[in-house]
């Protein structure tokens, strides 16, 4: 990437921000002038968000939510990779378990929240388990496909060099499947966030999902919008962080293929 700024690029970026600011202004103007019962102005919503993110709710709701999200996401990803890579590597295994996996993948994670609460109680651990359940399938299926797609020549090279199965998985199959695994991790990130918010809406007494639902039910309109803004901001921050990590981890891959990564 060249350092010199192309005026056209600058114009494009400026236009994008201009439109964003204009929309926020429109929201502000419309909400203050129309005085709608269900729409609070942007300024009030942003103030409510700030209050939520910096007040006592930071330690009772915001941070616990993020903690559950990270724990569930991490567990889901580890399980997905740890189970998916060997399944993809042992090719003959796949037809036996594919239908079961497809079914489990098709279960909307929110639908199992009531059952999970029934089985495991209305605890943080239950919510983490459901987040992990929701997140693991995208990773698992991509890990299977990625590991199946590894060039057999690479694996044979490993065997010739007398690597054990564990070493082949760790040093050949996983790195080669990594681009596709990352595609799964990216999908799982969005799912984990959705399940986090949702799990806090059912049989819960804390968390961001709980906060926005209670605010809505008590008709605290700015607080509702503020909560949604905060959740959106958290989602945005994690997706930016993810892209950064992905670019660093997969830099060898893009470099080697000289351009667009292929699955």
């Amino acid at each position: 990437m060249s350092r010199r700024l192309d005026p056209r690029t600058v114009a494009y970026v400026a236009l994008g921000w201009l439109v964003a600011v204009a929309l926020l202004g429109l929201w502000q103007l419309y909400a203050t002038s129309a005085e709608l019962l269900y729409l609070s102005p942007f300024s009030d919503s942003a103030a409510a968000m700030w209050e939520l993110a910096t007040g006592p709710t930071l330690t009772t709701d915001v941070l616990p939510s993020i903690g559950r999200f990270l724990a569930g996401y991490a567990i889901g990803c580890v399980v997905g990779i740890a189970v998916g890579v060997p399944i993809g590597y042992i090719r003959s295994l796949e037809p036996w378990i594919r239908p079961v996996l497809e079914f489990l993948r098709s279960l909307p994670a929110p639908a199992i929240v009531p059952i999970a609460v029934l089985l495991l109680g209305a605890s943080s651990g239950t919510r983490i388990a459901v987040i992990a359940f929701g997140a693991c399938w995208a990773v698992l299926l991509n890990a299977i496909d990625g590991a199946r797609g590894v060039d057999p020549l690479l694996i044979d090279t490993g065997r010739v060099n007398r690597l054990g199965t564990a070493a082949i998985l760790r040093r050949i199959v996983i790195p080669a499947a990594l681009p596709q695994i990352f595609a799964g991790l990216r999908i799982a990130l969005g799912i984990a966030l959705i399940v986090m918010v949702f799990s806090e809406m059912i049989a819960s007494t804390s968390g961001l999902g709980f906060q926005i639902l209670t605010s809505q039910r008590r008709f605290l309109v700015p607080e509702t919008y503020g909560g949604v803004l905060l959740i959106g901001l958290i989602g945005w921050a994690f997706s930016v962080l993810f892209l950064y990590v992905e670019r660093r981890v997969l830099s060898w891959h893009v470099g080697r293929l000289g351009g667009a990564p292929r699955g």
Partner: protein
Amino acid sequence: MEGARDVTAVPAAGRGRTAPAVRLGRNGRAVRWAKGAAGVLAAVGLWELVRALGLLPSGYVPSVPSILDTIGANFGDMLLPAIGDTLQAWSLGMLITVAIGMLAGIAIGLSHWADAATRVVVEFLRPIPSVALIPVAVLIFGIGLRMQLLLIVFACVWPVLFNARYGVQSVDPLLLDTGRVARLSRVALVRRVVLPAALPAVFTGVRISASIALVLAVSAEMVTGSPGLGKLIVDADAAANVELSYAGVFITGVLGIALNYGLQAADRRLLPWSVASRGDAR
């Protein structure tokens, strides 16, 4: 959600019709089917084993036959109407999603200025987890179908939009030049060259959206009590009718699979030139 892989394969779209890369014989397909069925049976066996060993509180883990019995006994009077309600929200939501996502995606794909103007807004809106909008949607529309539609469209429009944009932007320049040499007008170029080449990518987006739409429809029903499978699950749970609760979850999963396979079949039917139609070469 295996879309990410499909998307990267899209640039090849626009080549001619190709035969499926892997053709299993009738025998091979039967063997594959039998293996899958054995896997399902093993999973059921594992479930019953967990029950028998008492690893989970047994009152909360009904046996597979009792779940199937519950489905049979309640199918006509409870499950079918719930499926109908959920499918209504799903299909209307998908219709609006595809219309908006495709038009916006193609417009953004065709014009650098439209792309630039919407980029920041889109990048900020997209990561908002859609269920977080349930309270907002309830504030705006109250409880009911319109609220569900708002949620579904907000969550599902992105995959369609991004895939449409990607599809348009990655149309083979040679095809465009050929069209120009043939003196096609701009409108004709879009309709007869860009659109057919971009449609397979759009359809990949539609398939990703379809499963998200189901999640949103069910979630909204669970939180707000709008009628459908989600409400059925929550109500059964509240009435301590564990079997019916599991039956609802099971049916939701089956519905998810059915929609996914249905759309895959439609993809193959409607877009025989698309990459996804060339058989599973995995």
